[in-house]
Structures are given as structure tokens and as C-alpha cells.
């Protein structure tokens, strides 16, 4: 799942015939002023300015300002740029035209197992959240398109009547086209407004989630996907992602501040069971990590270095199920090299390392791990005969 910020999201909707307000995304006040000189709507109309970052609750944070004139927008851009919210620095501001309107509506398309569902409601904004019952849906099977009659019925069921009913059905059809053609997983327009001047439906705000796996067939996806966490990635996370993008197999790393149990398990399935076991035993995770698909040893070494340099950790859980084809000896070679490096840099003092693993070349791999004891590591090594997550129990019993 890949989140897309408002600017590029609106760009995709516009591509599929949905009317969006005029907008510009700026990274400096100078750029805004430059754009203002050539765009009539900035000079004459009312404006909205929003921080263009993957942040929730922007309104509460004062990162959305409405009903501005050109000067006001300039001041808002100046104020927002560079503002620090948690680990995110505001580097972009989106300034869009304010659309005078009376009615607000809701439209979205959501991926399901067999296709998608189109949702409409004749209320919008925050009103829709407290009136979920008024949202009506139409199910569309994969490979099919919604029939005009079904869309009309959906609009009617959602309480639309008169000329706006026809328009919202057309709007839903365009939103579906955008969803289907852009490999979207979720598109939401809230609110859809009826422009006071001409009765046209305008998408005022967009949530766009795309299928990152489909990037290969969308050469025009020239935007960056936003972090899904509501926070920016850390330097170490970005470094592991860079390694991940270069290799066969994968390595993953996410930091969790405040934890003291470091995770270095194998496999996307087992790694979550290990995390569950830590939480179930009352431990606090310092990170999530995973290596899988027989990655090269150097990639595992980079991951190990990052895990070993997490602050204030007491245990490292080097867990893993019985691998199908990930070479235990080779990947452990990477982990051992990473541990040695960390130790030579003065880290891992007082840290207990727990190992459990099986798979190709398991005997040799586990033996190499055991030998780390002779180098002064506090390490305990188990093979396949010890159940998967028992090492977590052992680690946390003597915490």
C-alpha cells in the first residue's frame, strides 16, 4: 500500500476527468509569489493553504488555513514551511482555490477481495463520520465496470435527487475509472462539493492509496510515496530500504522508540510471531526487522549493524523458522560479521543474544553462532528442536 499526497492525488483524479480546484504545491515563499504573478485565481479568489506532508490532524496543528487572500496565503506559506511536527519537517505547502459552495457530499472507492465497492453519501466533511449509515455502496466485480443504471440507483439510494443525482453518478463513474486504471487500493473524496457558481461537482480533498507493486506499468507515477506511519523514516530505516531495493530477497527495519528488546528474525511470517511473543511476555519492542528470500550476507550484515546500534537494548532475538531455501550458514555469516563490527565499536555491552533457527546448512550456521561465545558474546543458541518463540520466553524470564 502506498500513500500519495494530496497534490499528486488530485493530479491523478484530474487525469480521469474529475474537476479539482486550482492548486499549486510550493517549497518556498518566493516560488509562491512567482506563481501568484501568473495565476489569476491566486490574485483574485479566496485561498486555502495546507501543509503538504503525510500528517494527520493538520487542522488541529494549525497546518490548514482557510479563507485567505493572496497576502494571507503568502503569510501562511511562510509560517508553515520549516515547521517541525514530531520527526517531520514541513517542506511543501499546497495552496488551492477556495470553492464557494453550499452542499458537501462523500464519494469513495475501496478495494475488496473480488473487485471494489463504490460508496456515496449525500453528506460530507466530518458529518459523514457520524452518519456512516447514510453511506450507500455499490459492488463491482473485478474486470467489470459499473453500469450507468446501477450508479443512478446508488445515487438515488444515497438520497440524491434532481440534477445533482445525475452529476454524482457521473462523478462516481469517473472516480471508479481513476481507481481501476491507476491500480488504486483506496480513493476517497471528502467533501465533494457543489460549486455555487455553476452547480459543478468539485473534489475538494482527496485520499489516494495506490498499489506500489503496480508501479512498473505507470510511468507517470513520478511522485514519491509518503511514509505510512505518520512520521518520517529515520536515517537507519532509509539506509536499510536502500539496501532492500538493490537485492534479491529482502531486508526490513523499523525503529520503535523506547523499547529494549531488539528483533533480528527471519521471514515475514515468523517475525510477527516473534514480535507477538515479546509483547505477550510484557516486553517492549525496540524495532521490527526481517530478512527473507535468501538475501546476500552483506545485506543481512547491514541490517544487523542497525539492530545492534539501537539504543538501550537488553536482548537481541535472532529468531527464525525452518527455512525453505534461505541459507542459514550464509545469512548467519552476515549477522556474525555485523555483531563483530558492533562489538569492535564498543556496542552490545551487556546485551544478551538469543538464537533459534533451522533450514539449509543449519548445523554449520548454528555452530558458527555458538562459536561467538568464545569471542566474549553473551549468546545462547538453539536449533529446530526448540519451539519457535521459546527463546523470547527465556529472554524475558530473566529480564
Amino acid at each position, binding site marked *: *500500500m502506498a500513500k500519495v499526497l494530496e497534490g499528486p492525488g488530485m493530479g491523478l483524479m484530474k487525469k480521469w476527468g474529475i474537476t479539482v480546484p486550482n492548486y499549486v504545491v510550493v517549497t518556498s515563499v518566493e516560488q509562491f509569489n512567482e506563481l501568484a504573478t501568473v495565476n489569476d485565481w491566486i490574485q483574485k479568489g479566496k485561498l486555502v493553504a495546507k501543509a503538504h506532508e503525510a500528517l494527520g490532524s493538520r487542522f488541529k496543528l494549525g497546518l490548514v488555513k482557510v479563507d485567505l487572500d493572496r497576502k494571507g496565503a503568502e503569510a501562511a506559506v511562510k509560517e508553515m514551511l520549516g515547521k517541525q511536527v514530531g520527526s517531520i519537517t514541513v517542506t511543501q505547502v499546497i495552496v488551492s482555490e477556495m470553492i464557494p459552495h453550499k452542499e458537501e457530499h462523500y464519494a469513495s472507492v475501496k478495494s475488496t477481495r473480488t473487485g471494489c465497492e463504490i460508496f456515496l453519501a449525500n453528506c460530507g466533511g466530518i458529518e459523514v463520520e457520524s452518519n456512516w449509515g447514510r453511506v450507500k455502496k455499490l459492488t463491482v466485480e*473485478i474486470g467489470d465496470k459499473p453500469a450507468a443504471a446501477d450508479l443512478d440507483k446508488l445515487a438515488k439510494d444515497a438520497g440524491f435527487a434532481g440534477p445533482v443525482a445525475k452529476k454524482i453518478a457521473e462523478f462516481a463513474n469517473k472516480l471508479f475509472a481513476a481507481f481501476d486504471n491507476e491500480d488504486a487500493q483506496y480513493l476517497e473524496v471528502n467533501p465533494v462539493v457543489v460549486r455555487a457558481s455553476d452547480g459543478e461537482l468539485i473534489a475538494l480533498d482527496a485520499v489516494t492509496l495506490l*498499489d506500489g507493486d503496480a508501479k512498473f506499468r505507470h510511468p507517470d507515477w513520478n511522485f514519491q510515496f509518503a511514509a505510512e506511519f505518520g512520521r518520517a523514516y529515520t536515517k537507519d530505516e532509509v539506509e536499510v530500504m536502500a539496501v532492500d531495493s538493490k537485492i534479491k530477497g529482502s531486508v526490513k527495519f523499523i525503529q520503535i522508540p523506547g523499547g529494549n528488546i531488539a528483533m533480528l528474525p527471519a521471514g515475514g511470517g515468523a517475525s510477527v510471531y516473534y514480535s507477538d*511473543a515479546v509483547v*505477550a511476555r510484557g516486553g517492549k*519492542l525496540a524495532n521490527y526487522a526481517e530478512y527473507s528470500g535468501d538475501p546476500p550476507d552483506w545485506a543481512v550484515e547491514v541490517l544487523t549493524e542497525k539492530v545492534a546500534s539501537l539504543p538501550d537494548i537488553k536482548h537481541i532475538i535472532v529468531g527464525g523458522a*525452518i527455512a*525453505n531455501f534461505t541459507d542459514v550458514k550464509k545469512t548467519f555469516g552476515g549477522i556474525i560479521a555485523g555483531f563483530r563490527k558492533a562489538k569492535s565499536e564498543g556496542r552490545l555491552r551487556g546485551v544478551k543474544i538469543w538464537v533459534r533457527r533451522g533450514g539449509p546448512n543449519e548445523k554449520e550456521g548454528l555452530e558458527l553462532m555458538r562459536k561467538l561465545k568464545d569471542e566474549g558474546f553473551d549468546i545462547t543458541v538453539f536449533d529446530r528442536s526448540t519451539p519457535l518463540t521459546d527463546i523470547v520466553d527465556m529472554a524475558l524470564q530473566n529480564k
Partner: protein
Amino acid sequence: MSILANKDTRVVIQGGAAGVNAARRMAEFCYLNKKSLYVEAFVYPPDAGKTNEVPYGSGLLTIPVYKTVAEATKNHPGINTSLVYIGADRACAGTLEALNDPHIKLVSMITEGVPEKDAKLLAKQATKLGKVFNGPSSIGIISAGSCRLGVIGGAFDNLVACKLYREGSFGVITKSGGLSNEIIWICSQFADGITTAIGIGGDAYPGTDYVSYLEMFENDPKTKAVVIVGEMGGDLEERAAEWYGAKKRRIKLLAVVSGFCQESLPKGMKFGHAGAKEGMKGEGSARSKSDALKKAGAIVPPTFGALGPAIKETYDEFVKSGQIVPVADVPASEVPKLPKTVEQAMRDNEVTVVPLIRTTISDDRGDEPCYDGYPASELINKGYEIPHIIGLLWDKRLISKQEAEIVKRILMLSADHGPCVSGAYATILAACAGIGLSQAVAAGMIMIGPRFGGAVTDAGRWFKYAVDNKMTVDEFLAYMKKNVGPVPGIGHRVKSLRNPDKRVKELVGYVKSLNIKTPYLDFALQVEQVTAAKKDNLILNVDGTMAAVLVDIGFPVDSLNGFFILARTIGLIGHWVDQKRQDSRLIRLFDYLVNYAAPKRREVPPLK
């Protein structure tokens, strides 16, 4: 019995190297079960018409590669299953090709990173045709004792450890490939093992979900219980729970679900497979799944670690009620052993091998080459140079600094001698004909022989013979005249006493200045005095000088031509590069440079 994969399964593998690797793993499984390999064809357009080699026991099987699935099933009408190992951008088209082939009933997709839309379309097409589409991101499907699709089950030792050579009573369905093996192992240790284990893939919308497979297991009398390994996200586990709770089922259901850690993580943070994403209002959370399964009557151990004992308890109940009759394990001696590679058998001291070749100069098995035992980098860092490497590789000794200097000067003096000499001319001729570097240099190299550059060894041999046998110059010349012919190393085409070869003068002057003993050079110079007195151009030439000096500093006679060959290679490469740089044209000999001494044109007589 088993489901999906069985003794009648015949397979085409779509894809390249990863597919071949899977076939090798499948052949190991067949070998363990003493069955012939059921992979009959590959489909991989770049290699169409070729064959792939798959080791089976100590032999090799040859499996044909086709351009299309249709070609494969036409030539192998028994094929009923396809495994897709094609890259994510082409996987959808390839899978459709297989699904639409009337022979194929099951397609399992291993490819990861397939767009959700593609997976949904494929699932719809499979349903429409009444076929099974498993995956994407599936580790494979394995039925103990009969059929393995993909690498599921891991290495050969693991197949044996998990008793996959005979059927058990437990079915396994898992999203996680890595955990499939773990569960198979647990089933073999805490119970009698598996019937079939299926990896459905960790994507959000797997082509076939738990319910379809549960239905199949329910209809497989050999399967008594099914273990589901679930993950947070989606509603597959809830649907499985719904199926199980809907009516009385023959099979027992055991399930574990991961993702409880999510509850104590910062908001928005999620882990694991692509499908692991929580819906709004907690649906799809590990807790809601686990609760739904419990409510439906499934056995849901609190942790993954408690799964083994739960499986044992279930197994014991079946044994007690007589529904499962425990089978005696096959003695280890009767389980086939995968033949070892020669390397492995040698490591284990089980075989000796008579080496094919023997080397006494060089070893490449470490992290860098060793020349006569000395690591290359250490030689560099301790100040040794090219002549020392020549000493080590040609004569297995570390030569002195002074000797190295002589060798260096010999190489410098002989590196090139202009474009007209046989070697350089041949290389230039080849370069102008568009011939590549190595062949063009080889053409020049071929010229090195008795009349050009190749007299060094022979010169050294005869000077050494004379000195070692304490011959006088007269005795030597008489011996040579009688037994050998002209003295190698004496005489030059253009140089003479009056027009001396500066290279010879230089080399002799330098060696003489060193005040070392040079009996061979001294003898050669004495020979020159006599021969040059007879005829002006019978001087000691550069080959003869090099030869005498090199014998003086101890190089073996057989290596001597090597000094000229090595030195002149520098020049030959230079000539090739020079012609290439100029983009020289093809050389054709002008006919006025040929004396056409052949008979005049005449009539051909009738053939008799």
C-alpha cells in the same frame, strides 16, 4: 490421499533460473520417494528449443523448454499443473496463458510483488473455468510421499526430518512461506506428519483462500485435522471460522494468528506481509480473528509455541478413538540418501580422487593468488616487482634485486622492434582485417620461431652445452657444424660488425659493469669474435645475448624463449591498439610486389 498435488500431477514450470532451481528441489523429493520426476516441461521464451538439466540422484535429467504453454501441453498432454516463476510485470499474462490451457487444472504462482488487480483478475478467471489458482507469493504445495510443487519443504535433510516420504494425518494452510516448513516439522514431531501443506501466499487477496482448501481437506478422508497459520489483515481467517462454525465438520481445525503486537505499537505502524493491514474499527485484527476462530470451535493456542502440544493432544485423541492408526517409522537405513557431491564426499573422507593435473607454482584457492606460496599482495607491499613474479612462476625462486634488474632490462630492450618484423607485421595485418586483440596478437606470436625471436632457448642450450662440457670455441664450432648447423644466437639479417646492434651493446655493457661471473656470456662473446671474423654479420645477436645472460643468472634453458615472447607481447598489443585507434583499412598485397612465377594460363585437359 492428499489434495491438489498427488501421484497424477504432471507439471510445466513457467520461468527461468528460479524455476529450474525449483525443479531441482522437486527432483530431490522424487528421489526420496523413489518416483520419477513429474516436471515434464519448462516454458521460457528466451530459452525455447533448449533443454534444462535437473540432477536426479547421481544422474542428470534433461527437460525441454518451450515458447508457449500450448506447445508444452501439446508435446506433454499429461501436464495438468503449472508453476509460475515469471517476473511480476509479466506474471499475469503468463498465468492467464496457463489457466486458459484446457490441460491445466491448477496454477500456483510463486512470483512476489504482483499487483492486487492482477491477482483478483486471475482468481476470477480461475473460478470461471473451474480451476484452482494458488498464490501469488506462494512458497508451494507439498503432499507427503507423492508430490512437491515448488521449494516448500526446504533442503533434502529437512524432507527426511519431517518424514515427508510418507503420509500423515494433518493438513496445513499457511500464508507465510517461512512458517510452512515450521508447521510441517511440528506436525511430524508432535503427530504423524502431514497429508498436504499449502502456501497460499501473504498477499492481501490470495487467489484461493482457506475456505476452498478446507472444503477439499474435509473431503479427503486421510486428513483428520487442519492447521491454519493466519495473519492479521483481511477477512480470510474470519471466513474460515465462518465455514468451520457453519455446520458439523469431520476435520478438526487448529489455528494460530499473528499480529497481536499491533495493539501495542504506535498508531499506523504495521509489519509483515503485504496482506497484513488492519481495517477500520479493528476488523482484521489478530484478536478479532482469533476470537472468531475460537467461537467457531477451532482450537486456538495462545501462542505459536503452544501449537505443538495442541497438535499432539489432537493427534492423541484421534489415536485413542481409533481414527488414526499410528504407523511405524521407516528405519533411517531405508530412507534414500541424496548422493553427495564429490566435494562433500571428500570433505567427509569418503572418497579419494586421482587429480587430473598437478601444479607446483600457483594456488588460487584463498582470497588472493599465491605465487610459489607467496601471496601477491604481500609481494607488492614488500617492494617486489614483475621480474620477481617471473622468477617465482618460471623458476620457482625469488631472484635477487640485481637479477631482477637484468630481467627488467631484457624485457625493456625486447618489447618491440618496429612494424616490419614478422611478428608485428602479422599482428598489424590481422588488426587491419578486423581481427580481435587476442587472435591478432596470437597471429604475431605464431611468427616467433627459429628465424624470428625464437632462438633464445636454442642459443642458451648450446652455449650451456659448450661451457658445461669445457669446450673451446673451435671445438664448439666444429661440433655445431657437424651435428647442429648454424649456431643459434649468432648472425643477423641487417646488423653487422660495422653496424652493431645497440641493444646487444647495452645489455652486455650493463652486465659486465656489475662485476659478476658470466661464463656463458663470456663464451658467447668469444664465439662471436671467431664467427664475425669469418663473416661480417655473424655477430652475437640479441637472442644469443639474452640467452647467455639468462643462463648466467640461472634461468632454466626451457624458459628462455618466454622472455622474448613476454616482452614482444607488449609490442604486439601496442600495434593492434595502434591500428584500431587509426581505424586502419584492410591490407591487400599489391601485385607488383609479387613475382608471379606460376605457369602461364593454359587449357584444362579433360578429366580422366
